[in-house]
C-alpha cells in the first residue's frame, strides 16, 4: 500500500507505555491524527483536519476515483433497530458512508450514532495492542504472551477453586455466531458463570413476556407500527434511544391519526411529540397500568371474546385491578384520574394499539411485574397477535436480542433451553460431544449444611452444571461476599469482560473494591473501557484488542427478531482480532479447542462464521433459529430493496414472500423455506406463512382450568381448538407420524418439537397448519413467580415511606442465583431525611451503553462534553445550585459523583434527579484520564451515574435497579 505517504511523523503514536514505536500497519498509519497523544477537549481544538479521503485521494490522485470503490453492506452496531449501512471502501480504507435508502428498516435514515459509524475506520482512540498492567504501568505485549499468561492463570484458578471462579462476561456487541460460540465456550470451560448486558437491560422483559405467552421478545416490529392506531410508550425514550424508530411512529401518527401517549417521569424528547404526556413517580408502572385497566374494566372496554379464547387468569387480574381506584393510583403514582382515564379511553378506542417499553419499565426490583402488567394490558384490549398491536419492546444493543436468544446468560443454554439435564443433553448432541465429558468439566463439590453461616442448614449439593450461574448484575457480590454464602465452591477470582462496560452497572464503589480484590482482570474489547482504569490495581490486568463488528462478519438479530447479515467492511485495525478468533486462541490454550470446534472449520486461527451459524441452526428449535441459514440470510442482505416497508414481506425477487431477515421463529430446516414470523401469535395467517398461536408452555390445565386456547387457532389449522406442544407421541396419536420420512422418524422417535434434530416434527405440525409449540392461552398469572399476579411494591430506596407498609418489598432471600439477596432489610431503613430526592437515569442520543466507543468518536463526543444531572429548578434553588454549576450527587450507600447541573423547569418534576448513564472515566470527583493506556482515552470522560446507584435486584432475573433510588444534591 502506498498510503504511508501521508503519515505524519508526529503521529507515530505509541500506545502502551514502554513499548517501542508502533509496529504499525502502514496502511493505517495515515488514520492517526497528529498531536493526539494527550487527551483533553482543550487539545481537540487544534486537531488538524487530516482526512481519510484526502489521504486516500492524495495517494491515489493519479487514478480516477471510480472503479475502485467497493460498496459493502453492513448493519449499524449501535442499537437494536438494525439500520442498514452502505460502506464505501477503497483499497481497504473506509472512505464513505452512503444512506441505504433501500433498507427496509431505516430507509437510509440514521441517528447521530449511525451517521457517524464510519469514524470506526479512523479508530484513533482504540486499544491498539495487547497490553498488560505491570507494576502500575501499561506494557505492550504480544498476543501469544497475553494468551499464555491469561491461560496459565486461569488454569491455576481452576485447579485451586474450580471453573466457577472464572467469570465469562460476554456481550450484546458480539454477532450471533460469536455470542453462541461464547456461550458454548463457557460451557466447555465448565461454568454457568456467563452472562451479558441483557441481564441489566431487558431480562425482566424476557422473563415476564415469555412467561405470559411463550416468547420473550418484541412481538411485532418497528415497521409494523405503521399499522398502529394508537401508540403507548412507557418507560422509554425512543427519540433518543432508538431515533430511527420514530420514523415508524410518525408514520402511524401522521397517516393513521394515531395518538401517541408517553408515560414517563421525565418530559423526554419523545414526550415532546406526544399528544398525551403522563408524568409518574419512578417505579409506579404497575399502579398506572392497573389504573388504566381499572377504567377499561369499569367501562367494559376490554375485548371479552379475545380474553375468553386466548387468555388465562384475567379474573385474578380483575381482583387486583379493582384495588387500584383512581384515587389510589394518584396517591401512589401521582397521575391524576383525568389523564389516566383519558389514556385508557384512547387506547380502548383506537385499536389495534401498540405498547412500547424500555428500561424505564424493566430496571426495577419489580421489573418482571411491570413487564407482565404491560402484557396483561394488551391482552385485555385484544391487541395481541395483530398487525399494529403487540408489545413492541425496543431492545438496546444491536445484538442484544441475538445474544439473549443464543443464551449468553447464566440461567440458560442457547435457545432458552435452560440448564437442566435435558437441555445439556440436547446441546451435547448438537455439539457432538459426550455428555459425561461435558459434565466432567464442571465443579462437583458437595458441601452440605453451611450456607449463609447457618448451622445445620439445608443439605445442599452444589451442582454447578444445573444451577443458574451468578448474573452479571451480581458479579461484585460473587467477589466480595463471604464464600460460605456463595452457592459455589469458591468466590469469583478472575473476571473476563469480553465487550462490557462496567459503568453500566450499579454500585460503582463496591465494584471498584471487587476489581481490586480479583486475582486477574481481563478486558477483551476494541476500547480499554472503564474496566482499565476504575480500580487501583497495579498488576494482573490484561487488555486485549478486539475487532469491531465492521471488521468481521456474521449475523445480527434486530429487536424485531430479524436476522441480518453483515459483511466485513475493513480488516481489523491495529493488532485487534475478531472475537471468535480470540476465543479460538483461548480455547486452544485452555485445552478444549478440539471439542469446541469439532464441526467448525478453523482457518488459521479464525473459525469459520458460516459453520457456526449452521451449528446453531441445528440446535435452536425452541425459538426457530433453525431456518436462517447463512445462504438465506445473505440472499436477504443482497435484496434489501425487495422487502416491503410496512409488512417486511419480499414482493417478488429471490426471497419472494419471505419476511425480511426471517424473524424467528423461522421454523424447521432452511430447506423447509419457512418465511419467518413477522408478527408473533397472529392467527390470521397459516403457521407456514408466519402465523402463530400462543405457546403451550405451561401445561394443559391448572387447578382444573383449561390452559389451552378455546375456539381460537391459526388459519388453516387442522386442529380447530387449543392443543399442547408437539411430540413424537402426539404425532402418532394424531395419525401424522407417517408424514415423516424414514430418516426423520428415526431421529424424532421419543423426541419433541424442541429436541428433534431432524426438524421433522415441526415440519409435519406446520404441514397441518399447527404451531409446533402448541396452541394455548396467554397466562396473566405466572404461578411460578414470586408475585403470580403483578402487584406494586415500593422500591428498596423509596421516597414514599408512607406506602411501604401497604406495598412492601420482598423478604430477603438466601440463595438467588447463588447469592444472598437483600430486599426488606434495606427497605426497612428510612433514608428520606438525608436523601430526599429520587434518582433515576436514562440515555442520550449521542452515546450508547457505557459509552466507551461513542465517547471515543470525536464526531459524537463533541456534542456531549459534560456529564450532567437534570435537576428541577425548585430542587436547584433549594440546594443553592445554578444551571451549569458543578454539583455533588450523593446516594445512600455513600457514593458521590461530581457532575454539572442542568436546571430544568419541567424536564423532571421537583424531587427527581435524572442522570444519563453513558459517562465514565471520572470516579467520585477524580479524573482518571492519566490511567488509560496512552492514546486510548476517550475524548470525553465523566462520572458514571451508576457509581452512585444503589443495591436492588429484580425478584426473578436479578435485573439491577437503576431507575429508582435516592440522592441528595449540593454545590461542589
Amino acid at each position, binding site marked *: 500500500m502506498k498510503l504511508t505517504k501521508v503519515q505524519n511523523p508526529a503521529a507515530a503514536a505509541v500506545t502502551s507505555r514502554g513499548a517501542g514505536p508502533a509496529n504499525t500497519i502502514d496502511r493505517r498509519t495515515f488514520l492517526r491524527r497528529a498531536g493526539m497523544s494527550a487527551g483533553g477537549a482543550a487539545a481537540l481544538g487544534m486537531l488538524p483536519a487530516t482526512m481519510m479521503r484526502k489521504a486516500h485521494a492524495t495517494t491515489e490522485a493519479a487514478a480516477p476515483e471510480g472503479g475502485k470503490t467497493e460498496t459493502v453492506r453492513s448493519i449499524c452496531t449501535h442499537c437494536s433497530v438494525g439500520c442498514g449501512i452502505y460502506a464505501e471502501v477503497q483499497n481497504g480504507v473506509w472512505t464513505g458512508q452512503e444512506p441505504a435508502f433501500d433498507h427496509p428498516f431505516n430507509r437510509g435514515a440514521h441517528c447521530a450514532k449511525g451517521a457517524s459509524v464510519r469514524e470506526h475506520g479512523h479508530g484513533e482512540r482504540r486499544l491498539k495492542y495487547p497490553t498488560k498492567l505491570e507494576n502500575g504501568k501499561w506494557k505492550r505485549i504480544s498476543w501469544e504472551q497475553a494468551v499464555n499468561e491469561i491461560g496459565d492463570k486461569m488454569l491455576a484458578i481452576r485447579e485451586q477453586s474450580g471453573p466457577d471462579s472464572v467469570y465469562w462476561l460476554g456481550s450484546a456487541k458480539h454477532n450471533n455466531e460469536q455470542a453462541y460460540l461464547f456461550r458454548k465456550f463457557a460451557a466447555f470451560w465448565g461454568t454457568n458463570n456467563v452472562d451479558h448486558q441483557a441481564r441489566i437491560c431487558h431480562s425482566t422483559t424476557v422473563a415476564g413476556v415469555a412467561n405470559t405467552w411463550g416468547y420473550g421478545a418484541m412481538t411485532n416490529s418497528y415497521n409494523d407500527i405503521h399499522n398502529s392506531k394508537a401508540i403507548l410508550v412507557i418507560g422509554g425514550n425512543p427519540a433518543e434511544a432508538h431515533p430511527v424508530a420514530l420514523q415508524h411512529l410518525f408514520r402511524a401518527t401522521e397517516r393513521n391519526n394515531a395518538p401517541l401517549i408517553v408515560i414517563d417521569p421525565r418530559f423526554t424528547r419523545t414526550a415532546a411529540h406526544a399528544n398525551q404526556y403522563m408524568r409518574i413517580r419512578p417505579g409506579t408502572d404497575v399502579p398506572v397500568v392497573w389504573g388504566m385497566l381499572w377504567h377499561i374494566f369499569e367501562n367494559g372496554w376490554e375485548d371479552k371474546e379475545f380474553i375468553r379464547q386466548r387468555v388465562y387468569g384475567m379474573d385474578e387480574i380483575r381482583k387486583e385491578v379493582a384495588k387500584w381506584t383512581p384515587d389510589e393510583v394518584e396517591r401512589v403514582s401521582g397521575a391524576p384520574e383525568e389523564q389516566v382515564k383519558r389514556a385508557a379511553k384512547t387506547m380502548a378506542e383506537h385499536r389495534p394499539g401498540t405498547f412500547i417499553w424500555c428500561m424505564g419499565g424493566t430496571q426495577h426490583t419489580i421489573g418482571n411485574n411491570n413487564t407482565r402488567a404491560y402484557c396483561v394490558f394488551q391482552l385485555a384490549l385484544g391487541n395481541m397477535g395483530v398487525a399494529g398491536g403487540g408489545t413492541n419492546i425496543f431492545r438496546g444493543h444491536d445484538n442484544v436480542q441475538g445474544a439473549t436468544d443464543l443464551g449468553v446468560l447464566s440461567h440458560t443454554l442457547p435457545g432458552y433451553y435452560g440448564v437442566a439435564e435435558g437441555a445439556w443433553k440436547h446441546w451435547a448432541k448438537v455439539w457432538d460431544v459426550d455428555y459425561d465429558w461435558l459434565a466432567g468439566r464442571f465443579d462437583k463439590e458437595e458441601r452440605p449444611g453451611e450456607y449463609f453461616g447457618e448451622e445445620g442448614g439445608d443439605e445442599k449439593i452444589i451442582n454447578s452444571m444445573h444451577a443458574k450461574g451468578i448474573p452479571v448484575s451480581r458479579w461484585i457480590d460473587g467477589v466480595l461476599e463471604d464464600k460460605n454464602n456463595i452457592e459455589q465452591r469458591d468466590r469469583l477470582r478472575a473476571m473476563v469482560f469480553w465487550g462490557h462496560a462496567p459503568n453500566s452497572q450499579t454500585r460503582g464503589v463496591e465494584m471498584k473494591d471487587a476489581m481490586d480484590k480479583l486475582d486477574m482482570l481481563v478486558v477483551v474489547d476494541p476500547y480499554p473501557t472503564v474496566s482499565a482504569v476504575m480500580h487501583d490495581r497495579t498488576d494482573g490486568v490484561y487488555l486485549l484488542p478486539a475487532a469491531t463488528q465492521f471488521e468481521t462478519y456474521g449475523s445480527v438479530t434486530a429487536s424485531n427478531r430479524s436476522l441480518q447479515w453483515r459483511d466485513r467492511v475493513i480488516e481489523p485495525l491495529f493488532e485487534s482480532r475478531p472475537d471468535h478468533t480470540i476465543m479460538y486462541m483461548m480455547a486452544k490454550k485452555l485445552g478444549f479447542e478440539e471439542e469446541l470446534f469439532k464441526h467448525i472449520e478453523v482457518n488459521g486461527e479464525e473459525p469459520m462464521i458460516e459453520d457456526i451459524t449452521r451449528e446453531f441452526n441445528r440446535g435452536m428449535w425452541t425459538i426457530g433459529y433453525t431456518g436462517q441459514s447463512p445462504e438465506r440470510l445473505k440472499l436477504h442482505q443482497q435484496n434489501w430493496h425487495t422487502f416491503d416497508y410496512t409488512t417486511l414481506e419480499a414482493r417478488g425477487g429471490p426471497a419472494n414472500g419471505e419476511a425480511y431477515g426471517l424473524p424467528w421463529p423461522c421454523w424447521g430446516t432452511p430447506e423447509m423455506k419457512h418465511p419467518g414470523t413477522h408478527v408473533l401469535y397472529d392467527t390470521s395467517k397459516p403457521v407456514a406463512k408466519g402465523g402463530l398461536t400462543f405457546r403451550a408452555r405451561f401445561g394443559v390445565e391448572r387447578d382444573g382450568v383449561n390452559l389451552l386456547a378455546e375456539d381460537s387457532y391459526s388459519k388453516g389449522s387442522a386442529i380447530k381448538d387449543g392443543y399442547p406442544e408437539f411430540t413424537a407421541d402426539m404425532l402418532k396419536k394424531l395419525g401424522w407420524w407417517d408424514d415423516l420420512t424414514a430418516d426423520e422418524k428415526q431421529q424424532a422417535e421419543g423426541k419433541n418439537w424442541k429436541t428433534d434434530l431432524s426438524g421433522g416434527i415441526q415440519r409435519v405440525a406446520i404441514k397441518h397448519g399447527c404451531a409446533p409449540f402448541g396452541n394455548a392461552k396467554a397466562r396473566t398469572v405466572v404461578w411460578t413467580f414470586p408475585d403470580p399476579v403483578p402487584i406494586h411494591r415500593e422500591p428498596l430506596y423509596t421516597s414514599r415511606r408512607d406506602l411501604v407498609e401497604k406495598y412492601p418489598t420482598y423478604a430477603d432471600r438466601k440463595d438467588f442465583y447463588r447469592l444472598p439477596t437483600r430486599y426488606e432489610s434495606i427497605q426497612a431503613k428510612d433514608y428520606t431525611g438525608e436523601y430526599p430526592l429520587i434518582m433515576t437515569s436514562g440515555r442520550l442520543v*449521542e452515546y450508547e451503553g457505557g459509552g466507551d466507543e461513542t465517547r471515543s468518536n470525536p464526531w459524537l463526543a*463533541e*456534542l*456531549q*462534553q459534560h456529564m450532567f444531572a437534570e435537576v428541577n429548578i425548585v430542587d436547584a434553588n433549594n440546594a443553592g445550585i445554578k444551571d451549569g454549576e458543578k454539583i455533588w450527587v450523593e446516594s445512600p450507600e455513600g457514593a458521590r459523583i461530581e457532575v454539572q447541573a442542568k436546571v430544568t423547569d419541567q424536564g423532571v418534576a421537583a424531587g427527581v434527579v435524572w442522570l444519563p448513564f453513558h459517562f465514565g472515566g471520572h470516579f467520585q470527583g477524580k479524573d482518571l484520564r492519566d490511567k488509560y493506556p496512552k492514546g486510548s482515552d476517550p475524548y470525553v470522560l465523566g462520572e458514571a451515574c451508576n457509581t452512585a446507584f444503589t443495591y436492588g435486584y429484580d425478584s426473578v432475573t436479578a435485573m439491577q435497579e437503576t431507575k429508582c433510588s435516592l440522592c441528595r444534591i449540593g454545590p461542589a
Partner: protein
Amino acid sequence: MHFPTRYRVVISLMLLLLALILLVPLAPYALAYVQGAGGVANPGTELWREVRQGVPGQTQVQGTDTGTLIGAGGEQWRRFRMEQLVPYSAVIFAGVVGLFVLYFLIRGRIRITAGRSGRLIQRYTLSDRWIHWFMAVVFLILMLTGLVLLYGRWILIPWLGPEGFSATAQFCKSAHNLTGLLFPVAVVLVLFAYLREALFNFKVDITWFLRAGGYLGGKHPSSGKINAGQKAWYWTVVVGGVLLCVSGLALYFPDFVQSRELLRNAYQVHTLVAVFIIAFFFVHIYLGAIGMEGSLEAMTSGSVDANWAKEQHDLWYEEVRGQPEPDPPGAGGIAAGGVASPRPDD
C-alpha cells in the same frame, strides 16, 4: 447596486420558510378552534414567534449564539454596512475633500500675512514630534488598510481581479490587525503629550469657534499654543481613539465569548468613529500641511516663524517671545528620522 430589491428578496425568502413551517402547528390549531376544543394558546404559534424574535434555544453544538435559530440583527447590520456605511461614508469623504478643493481654489494657500520674520520659535519638542509622527504613521496605515477593506470590493476588484484583491485585502487585514496593536500606544502617548495645551480655555476657545477660526474671512481669532480647532482634533483623536481601541479589541479576538450582537455593535462603533476621525483627519491634513503656510514645519523641525506664531497663536506668542531661539531647522528635525514629509514651501 439594488440593495432594496435584494433586501426584499431575502426577507421574502425567510418569510416564506417561516410560513411553511408555520403551516404545521397552525393547521390543527385552526381545526381545534373550529371544533371548540381550543381555549389554550397553541404553543406552536408561540414557538415560532419566539424563534422569530431570536429567543435562544438549546443545542448540543458548543459556541456562542449557537442556540439562536434566527438572529434578526444580521439583517440590520447588513443594512447598516451596505446601505448606510459604505455609501454615506463615501459621500462624506468625497464631500470633505471636495470642500477643501473648493476652498483651496477660492482662497488658495493662506500665507503668513506679515511674511517670514526669519526668527524661529521652538514650538514642539523632539518627543512631541516623535509622538505625533508615530501616531501619524499608525493612523495612516490603519486608515488606508481600513478603507481598502471598506471600498476595495468596488474599487479594487475591477483593477486587481478577485485573486489579486484577495491578496491585497488579506495583507490589509493583517496589517490593520497588527498595526492596530500599536494604536492604543499611540493614543496614550498623544493623550499625555498634548494634554496640557489641549485643555479648553472657554472664553478664548468659544470666540475662536464663533469666528470659525478666521478661515472664512476676518482676522485670526486669538488662541493659545493650540487653537480651539486643534483642541477639538486632539479630543477627537483621544476619545475616538479609545472607542476605536475598545471596539477594535472586541473585533480582534473573535474567539472570546462575544455574541454576534456585540461584534456587530463593535463594528458599528468602530466604523462610525473611524469615518468621523478620517473626515476630521482630512481637515487636519489640509490645514496642517497644505492650506496654511508655516504650519507643517512646527511638526518637522519643531520650530515656527515668529510671525506665524504671532498671527496664528498670539496668546502663546506672548508667552514664549522672550525665550531663546532654538537650533536651526533640520538639526534635530524629525525629517532626519526618515519620515518623508514635504518641506515647508517658501
